[in-house]
C-alpha cells in the first residue's frame, strides 16, 4: 500500500480520493525479537512449556503494543491448554472473526483475546483457515465461556468449530441463509428519495481510499 496523505491524493491533483468499493486485506508481517515489555517473557515461557513452539506457531506479531500469536489450527487446543495452565491465561475474552476474501486459501481468521488475571497480561491468538475448509477446533473444553462466542462466529462467518457441544445459530434465526458478517454478504438497503434527489443504500455509496 502506498497511500500518502490523509486524503489519499496520488499522482493527479484529484483529492476526492474516490476509489469505488475496493477493500484490500490488511498487510501482515512478523516481528523480530526483542518484542518488548512482557511479550518476551510470554514467548520464553511458552517455548519452555511447549517444546513444539516453533512448529505450532506460524508467526509472532507485535503491533501497537499488542502481541499476536498466529497458531496452526491443529495445535490450537494444545497451545490454549498450555497458555491456560502454565502461563496462567485464565480467561479467554471470546472469539472474533474476520473475513479477507482476497487472501486466497486464508480467507477466514478467528481472533481470540486472552487475559491473564494472575500476571495482568493480555495476548491474542489468531487462527487462519481457508473458506473451502472452514474448520477450527473448539476451545469450549478449555474455556467454557467461549461457547456462545463460537456460536456467534459460526453464525456470522460460517466458521465451523469442531467439537463444540451445540454449534447452532445464536443471533440470526435458525433457518437463516448465509453468514451476514462475511464480505460477500451484501448489507442490503434501498435507495431513498429525498426532495427529488436519490440517496443510495449504504453499501452502494462512495468508498474513499
Amino acid at each position: 500500500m502506498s497511500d500518502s496523505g490523509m486524503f489519499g491524493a496520488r499522482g493527479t491533483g484529484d483529492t476526492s480520493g474516490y476509489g469505488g468499493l475496493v477493500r484490500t486485506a490488511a498487510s501482515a508481517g512478523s516481528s523480530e525479537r526483542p518484542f518488548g515489555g512482557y511479550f518476551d517473557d510470554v514467548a520464553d515461557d511458552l517455548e519452555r512449556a511447549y517444546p513444539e513452539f516453533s512448529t505450532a506457531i506460524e508467526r509472532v506479531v507485535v503491533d501497537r503494543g499488542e502481541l499476536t500469536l498466529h497458531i496452526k489450527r491443529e495445535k490450537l487446543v494444545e497451545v490454549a491448554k498450555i497458555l491456560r495452565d502454565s502461563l496462567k491465561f485464565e480467561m479467554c475474552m471470546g472469539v472474533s472473526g474476520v473475513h479477507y476474501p482476497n487472501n486466497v486459501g486464508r480467507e477466514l481468521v478467528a481472533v481470540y483475546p486472552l487475559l491473564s488475571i494472575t500476571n495482568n497480561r493480555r495476548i491474542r491468538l489468531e487462527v487462519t483457515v481457508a473458506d473451502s475448509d472452514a474448520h477450527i477446533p473448539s476451545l469450549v473444553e478449555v474455556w467454557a465461556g467461549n461457547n456462545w462466542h463460537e456460536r456467534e462466529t459460526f453464525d456470522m462467518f460460517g466458521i465451523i468449530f469442531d467439537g463444540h457441544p451445540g454449534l447452532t445459530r445464536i443471533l440470526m434465526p435458525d433457518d437463516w441463509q448465509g453468514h451476514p458478517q462475511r464480505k460477500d454478504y451484501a448489507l442490503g438497503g434501498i435507495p431513498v428519495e429525498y426532495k427529488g434527489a436519490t440517496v443510495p443504500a449504504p453499501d452502494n455509496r462512495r468508498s474513499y481510499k
Partner: protein
Amino acid sequence: MTISDPYAPSRETTEGTVFSVTGGDWDSLVQEIGSTKEERVVVNMGPQHPSTHGVLRLVLELEGETVTEVRCGIGYLHTGIEKNMEFRNWTQGTTFVTRMDYLGPIFNETAYCLAIEKLLGITNDVPERASVIRVMMMELNRISSHMVALGTGALELGAITPMFFAFREREIVLDLFEMISGLRMNMAYIRPGGVQQDLPDGAIPKIREAVAQMRKNFKDNTTLLVGNSIWLKRTQGIGYLDLAGATTLGITGPVLRSTGLPWDLRKVQPYCGYENYNFDVITADTCDVYGRFLIRMNELEQSLRIIEQALDKLEKLQGAPVMVADKKIAWPAQLALGGDGLGNSLNHIREIMGTSMESLIHHFKLVTEGFKVPAGQVYAAVESARGELGAHVVSDGGTRPYRMHFREPSFNNLQATSAMSEGGMIADIIGAVASIDPVMGGVDR
C-alpha cells in the same frame, strides 16, 4: 379427557402435549397439566415477559417448581450494528455503538474511541480535559446503569418502591447528560480524539449539586433494602457462582467481584487516566445475588468520589482543548445553541464560508469522507457497568472500519444463567438473571 379452554388450546406432539397459553383462566390450565402423567414440564419464559430483563427467552425444564435445565434464547434484538459500521466512516460509528448497550452508551463510545485512538497512535495526544470529561461521564453513566439494574431487579422480585427511588436518581443523571451533550441517551458524545463539545457554562456547579443530591437520595434505597428480611430471603444464597465458575465462563464486572476477586480494569489496566483517581474496588465474598446487589450499591459512592475528583480537575483545566490538535482527525464542527436547536456556531460558518477556503475544504472532507486509520488491529477494553467491554477493531487503512467486534459483557455473562439457576427454584431464576444485569441491546447488538 382434555378440557377445552379457549385461552389455552392444547395439541398432541411426539414430545407430549403442548399448551399455548394466551392468558385467561389459570385454574383450568393447571388442572389440565395436572391431569397428565408427565412430571417434567418445559416452559417457555419470554421473550415477551416482564421479568426477563428485556427480550430474553428462557427455555426451562421443570420438575414441579425445581429447575432442571435452563437455556437462553437470544437474538431478538439483533440489529447488525457491527455489519452496518463497516459501511460508515469512523466518526459515524459512534452513533451506532452508543445504541448497543443502551444503558451504558458512554462505555460503548469510550471503548470504541480508545480502540481507534490506539490504531491511529494518538492515545497520548488526547487532551487531558477530554479524558477527565470521559471519566466523569463514564462514572455518571455507571450510576444511571446501576440504578436500572437495582430498580428493575427489585421490581422483578416484587418490590416496587426501590424502582421509584432508582429511577428518580437515574433521572438526575439523564438530566446532566442532556445538559452536557444535548441528549439523554445514545449521545454519541465521546468522539475519536476527544469529546464532541466542551461542557456548557455553569455545568460544574450543577453537577456538584446533583452529586450532593444523589448522595443524599441513595440512602433511601439503602435503608429500604440492605438488611431487609424479605430482600435477604430472595437474594442470599441465590444465583451462586464461585470464582472457578466465573473464570472459566469469562465472567467480569460485579458478578466476578462478588466472588471476592478485586478485578476492575479501572485499577489494574487503567485507561483515560483512571490511575490518577482515588477510589476503592468493591468486592463481596458471598458469590450470590445479595453480594452483587451490595457491590452495585457501594460502587455508587465510589463513582460519586471519582466524579468529585474529576470536577476538581476540570476546574483547573478550564478552557483547555477537548479534542486532539490534529486538524486531519478532529471533527471541525464548532457547535452552538441556535434558535432552531443545536447547530454549527455562527463564527464557524462565518470562517469557513467567508474567510478560509482551507477550513471549508477540511470541514467538507472530514464530514463526507472522514479520516483514514492506518491498517492493523487492536483490542481496547473498558470496565463498563457490567464488566469488560472490549472493542476489537480491524482497519484496512481506509476511512471505514474493516471489521468491528464488541466483546459485550452482557452477552458473555448471560451464559452463567444455567450455572446459577439449575437445581434451584423457578422463582430464583429471576433474581439470578437480574443480578447478571444483561442488557439485551448489548447482548444481541
